[in-house]
């Protein structure tokens, strides 16, 4: 398997959140996006700062993660870019 670049890692995190449907625990997201804890932490802070992902308070005041509308829009553009790249063999 080839190394993922940062845009692919961000894409994988957003796809994992989208596929889960509802809010997701950070640890589950870390497993699904196949990242180590320090890497996941840095990517999550980037996503939270850019407003692509938001935190939601759940049961027993636990923090859950959710994809925002901006995140959905970004993912849409990201998937289009990847498809364009594949179509022209770039």
């Amino acid at each position: 398997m080839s190394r993922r670049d940062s845009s692919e890692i961000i894409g994988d995190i957003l796809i994992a959140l989208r596929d889960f449907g509802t809010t997701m625990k950070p640890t589950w997201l870390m497993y699904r996006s196949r990242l180590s804890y320090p890497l996941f932490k840095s990517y999550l802070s980037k996503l939270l700062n850019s407003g692509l992902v938001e935190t939601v308070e759940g049961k027993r005041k636990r923090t859950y993660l959710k994809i925002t509308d901006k995140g959905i829009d970004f993912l849409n553009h990201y998937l289009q870019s990847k498809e364009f790249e594949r179509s022209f063999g770039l």
Partner: protein
Amino acid sequence: MGLNLFAIIVCSFIVHRSWSYYRILGQRNLLYFGWAFLLMGLSVLFKSIYGLHIWLTLTSYLLIYLTVRRQSAFDTTIWYILLLFGVIAWLHPNPFIFFGLNGLMLAYICFKYIQKLLLSFHPNLIVTLFAFFGLMVSQLIFIVGSYKIGNLVQLIGFALILIVVLRSERGANVTAGQF
């Protein structure tokens, strides 16, 4: 006139898409692909200035070739090739050499696409291969001297490129309602 306008529209469409996708993914290949189609559009626009037209077309096909074979950076050899193209364009603007070089580069591009298809199958990649194959055939027809048929084949090539862009957008379209 109709073909020129259509080619310029297709080229600007791809330049716009490549640039916006480059901003998302940051892949340099997307940037070079955009540059290639910008030069191709300009070559159609400056068809009346023959030397400039030749140089722009040759450079655009060279850029596509480098992008497809994933040449991530320009090395010194590329500058020598561009210089050579400049010399051919201005000192010896022979249409046969020009169409021959175009055809040769397009043949390389087609060969690369066949290799890519053998490695991983993608339906849009087949359409892309046919598009560049059409452009290659058009250059060979130009050498024979049948400009009317050559232009028609070139039109089909550009139409196929447009179809690939539209298909790629439709294939990856995700709406907010899906979440």
